[in-house]
């Protein structure tokens, strides 16, 4: 019991602040059918991006895994603040913690108002959650886009 507590406390000693690079290479908005209501229109955004990040410093003896996720942050035309995870990855070994990834969003990226029309540009950021063998879960941000990226007008097909 004391040992477990000591391990849990010891992870506060390890403070790493890894940095990385994130580039959004392309962003398209396509009008499609909504998931639940087939005759309703729903804008979907397709994001292509490149990530390079060295997250190896986050691995220490009490790190079970990293949960890594790419998030889009924006406020839509109605003033709703949104955070949407568009891609994630679980890293379980230190050897896999050097991230070099180019690809597109894994999860559907849509707005609550079902349209990206007049939505201000969005910021994208790569965040992580360090999950311990025992103890407290910690969160952090590796990289964030310096400039917000605007949503293009919606097109009818990709």
């Amino acid at each position, binding site marked *: 019991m004391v040992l*477990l507590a000591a391990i*849990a406390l010891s992870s506060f000693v390890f403070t790493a602040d890894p940095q990385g690079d994130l580039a959004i290479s392309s962003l398209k908005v396509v009008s499609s059918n909504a*998931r*639940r209501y087939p005759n309703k229109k729903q804008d979907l955004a397709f994001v292509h991006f490149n990530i390079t990040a060295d997250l190896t410093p986050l691995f220490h003896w009490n790190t*079970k*895994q990293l*949960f890594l*996720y790419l*998030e889009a942050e924006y406020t839509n035309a*109605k*003033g*709703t*603040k*949104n*955070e*949407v*995870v568009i891609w994630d990855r*679980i890293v*379980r070994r230190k050897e896999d913690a050097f991230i070099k990834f180019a690809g597109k969003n894994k*999860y559907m990226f849509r707005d*609550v108002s079902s349209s990206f029309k007049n939505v201000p540009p969005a910021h994208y950021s790569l*965040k992580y*959650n360090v*999950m*311990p*063998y*025992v*103890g*407290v*879960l910690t*969160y952090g941000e590796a990289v964030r886009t310096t400039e917000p990226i605007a949503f293009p007008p919606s097109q009818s097909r990709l």
Partner: protein
Amino acid sequence: MFTEELKAFKRLGFRHVLLQVLNFASVIASGLMIWKGLGIVTNSESPIVVVLSGSMEPAFYRGDLLFLTNPAGERYNTGDITVYKIPGADIPIVHRVLETHDVKAKKSSKVAATGAANQLLLTKGDNNYVDDIELYQGLEWLERKHIVGKVRGFLPYVGYVTIAMNDFPQLKYALLGGLGLLALIQRE
């Protein structure tokens, strides 16, 4: 065979039995007090939960113990792991937040317009391929009132005792009976 015990019992008398019963009751009451006190401090209806399914593997396995808090003024972020309970479903679910939407409060509403109060959430289990919309029983989004808490701390395996007790009820009765017997026949 039991005459010896009975004699000892008689010698100790009625007061002793009452004292043991009182002891037993105080143990149960203090346990309940600690649980409810924790609930008040963390603002969560059940501040400690046991993982029951494998939908968050490899982060959490069946039987892992999670510690929750649910501060009223704090908003939830993506990547946070929440425990939520949909009305009508009897089991709370432990899943990660995939989307948050802080809806702007209507000006007419008198409730303090902190973003935390009217947040719409979408969750997903790390080990599931799709998000949880099918689990919401017709709801479009998860709202703050459905959420039991945010996972803060983690202790592996310890909760497996409760799962074992659910799977093998005999174990539960054996344990309870044993404890009860011990409490009654124990004397200082």
